[in-house]
C-alpha cells in the first residue's frame, strides 16, 4: 500500500506537515496526493474511534441480519442502497450464507432501534425478515483494541 495511505489509515488525523515529514515528500506534494485520494474516493472519510462507555453518549447498537428478495434488474443493490441511506444505519454489507444484508444500526435507546426495525426496515418492499442482535460490549473496533496490553518494558540498551 502507498505509505501515505498506510499512515492515514492508522493515524487519520495527522496534519500535512507531519505526513510530509514521515513520507519524505514536500507539503504541497502530500496535499496534492491526499486530495487525489479523496477525489478518487480511495479515501472515503476520516473518523475518530470512540469508546462510548467513556463519552457518555453511547446509545445502543444492533447488528441486524436482513433477508431480502433480489430483483430482476440489479439484484440486491437497489434495496441495499435504500437501507443504507438511513442515517441510523452505520454499516451495510451484502453477505453470503443464511441471510443477505448485515447491517449495524445505532440509536439513542433500545426503543428507537426497535422502532427503526419495525417501522422502517421491515416495511421496505423486498425485505422478507430481520433478526436483531443488540451489542452488549465492545472489545475491538476498526482494528483498534479497546483493552490495553500491559506496557512491555524493554531494556533501555540491548545488543
Amino acid at each position, binding site marked *: 500500500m502507498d505509505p501515505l495511505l*498506510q499512515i492515514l489509515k492508522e493515524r487519520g488525523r495527522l496534519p500535512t506537515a507531519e505526513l510530509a515529514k*514521515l513520507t*519524505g515528500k514536500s507539503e504541497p506534494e502530500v496535499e496534492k496526493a491526499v486530495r487525489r485520494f479523496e477525489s478518487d474516493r480511495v479515501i472515503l472519510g476520516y473518523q475518530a474511534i470512540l469508546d462510548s462507555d467513556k463519552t457518555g453518549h453511547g446509545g445502543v447498537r444492533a447488528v441486524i441480519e436482513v433477508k431480502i428478495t433480489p430483483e430482476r434488474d440489479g439484484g440486491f443493490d437497489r434495496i441495499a442502497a435504500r437501507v443504507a441511506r438511513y442515517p441510523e444505519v452505520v454499516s451495510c454489507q451484502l453477505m453470503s450464507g443464511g441471510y443477505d444484508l448485515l447491517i449495524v444500526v445505532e440509536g439513542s435507546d433500545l426503543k428507537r432501534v426497535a422502532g427503526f426495525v419495525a417501522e422502517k426496515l421491515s416495511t421496505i418492499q423486498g425485505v422478507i425478515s430481520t433478526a436483531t442482535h443488540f451489542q452488549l460490549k465492545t472489545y475491538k473496533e476498526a482494528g483498534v483494541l479497546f483493552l490495553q496490553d500491559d506496557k512491555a518494558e524493554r531494556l*533501555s540498551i*540491548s545488543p
Partner: protein
Amino acid sequence: MKSGGEFLADHVKGIPRSGIRDFFEIVQKRGDVISLGIGEPDVSAPWAVREAAIYSLEHGRTGYTSNSGSLKLRNEVATYVENIFGERYNPENEILVTVGVSEAIDLALRAVLNPGETVLYHEPCYVSYAPSITLAHAKGRAIRTRAEDGFRLDPKAVAEAAKGAKVLLLNFPTNPTGAVLSGRELDALAKVCVENNLLVISDEIYAELTYETKHESIVTRPGMRERTILLHGLSKAFAMTGFRIGYACAPAPLIEAMMKIHQYAILCAPTLSQEAAAEALRGAEVTTREARESYQMRRDFLRRKLEEAGLKPTNPAGAFYLFVDIRSTGLTSREFALQLLDEEKVAVVPGEAFGPGGEGFVRCSYATALDRIEVAAERIGRFVKKLGERRLVAAR
C-alpha cells in the same frame, strides 16, 4: 589458598566487559531517557504467536522435545528457509533448533574449532563474536569494514586475510551498520571461501529486514552449501526476542556435532517457545512484510532528520540500525554518547562497543515509535549544533 576470582580461567578473565552492558548500566540510572539504543523490536510478538504459546501450556505441552527441536518446528523451518534463503535442508538431520542465534554461534564455533585455530570476522560487528571465538579457544582475526564502502565486506580483503584461517563468520545484514552484500559481492566472496577452503558461519538473523533488495544468502552460491552453517532465528522479524528461538542449517555431520554440544549443555530449546515459533513461521509472510514496511519508513525518517542535523548516517539496506558518523564533532563515540545522554537525555550506543572499527560512530536503532524517534532526532540535532558552536568558540 585460592578464592573467588582466582579460580577463573585465563581466557575468560581476558574477555572485557561488554561495552553495551557498561553503557546500559549508565543509562539505567537516568530516568526519562529516549533510547535509540535498543536492539529489539518495539512491538510484542504477533497475537497468533502468543496464542499458540498459551494453547500449548493449556494442553500441557511442558516436557522436553527432541534435542534437535520438535520435528513440527523443524519441518516449518525447512519450508521457511527454502522460501527465504532458497536452499532446502532436511529437517531430519540438517536443522538444529537452538536458544537464539547466540547459542547457535557458540555451538558452531565450538563444534569446528581446535584450540588456536583462526576465525575471520568483519568488524564493526555484533558484540558477541570476538568473545565467542575466545571462549572456543580460537583466535579471531578482524577484517575492518569502512563507512566509505558502506561497511560492506571486500572479498579481496578476505582473500588477503585468509592465510591459515579456518572459519569466516559473516553477518549480513549487519548489526550495527545495516550493511548488506550485493549478489555480485556474494559471488566473489563465495569464490574466495572455496579457494581458501574456509568454513562459513553465516548469521543472517536480519534477512527479512532487507529493504531495497531481496535478501540473498551466500549458501546458494556454488560450492557453498557443503561449507556453510546458516544461522537464523525468530527474534527480529517476528518480534520474539524473549522466546529465544534460533536455528542452524548445515550438512548433517556439522549439525550432528553441534547437536552433541547442545544436548549436553541445553538439552532442548524451551518447548513453549518452539510451539510459538512453529506458529510464527506458518503466518510468516504477513508478519515479516508488515515489519519490513514499518521499519523502512522509520529508517528513512530518522536518516532524513539526522542528515538535516548535519550528521552522516550510513544508508543501511538492512536490519534496524543507523550507524552514524560523528567524527566531525571531534568527540569519541563514548564521549558523544555520554554527553548526549547528559544534555539531551537520548541514549545511543557508542560505536566502540562493536569493536575498534566502530570508533567514530554511534548506533541509533529505529525500532522505536515514530513520535519518539522524532523527538530524539530533534534533540540530537540540537546537541550537534551546540557542539559546533562550542567548537567555534574554542577555536577563537
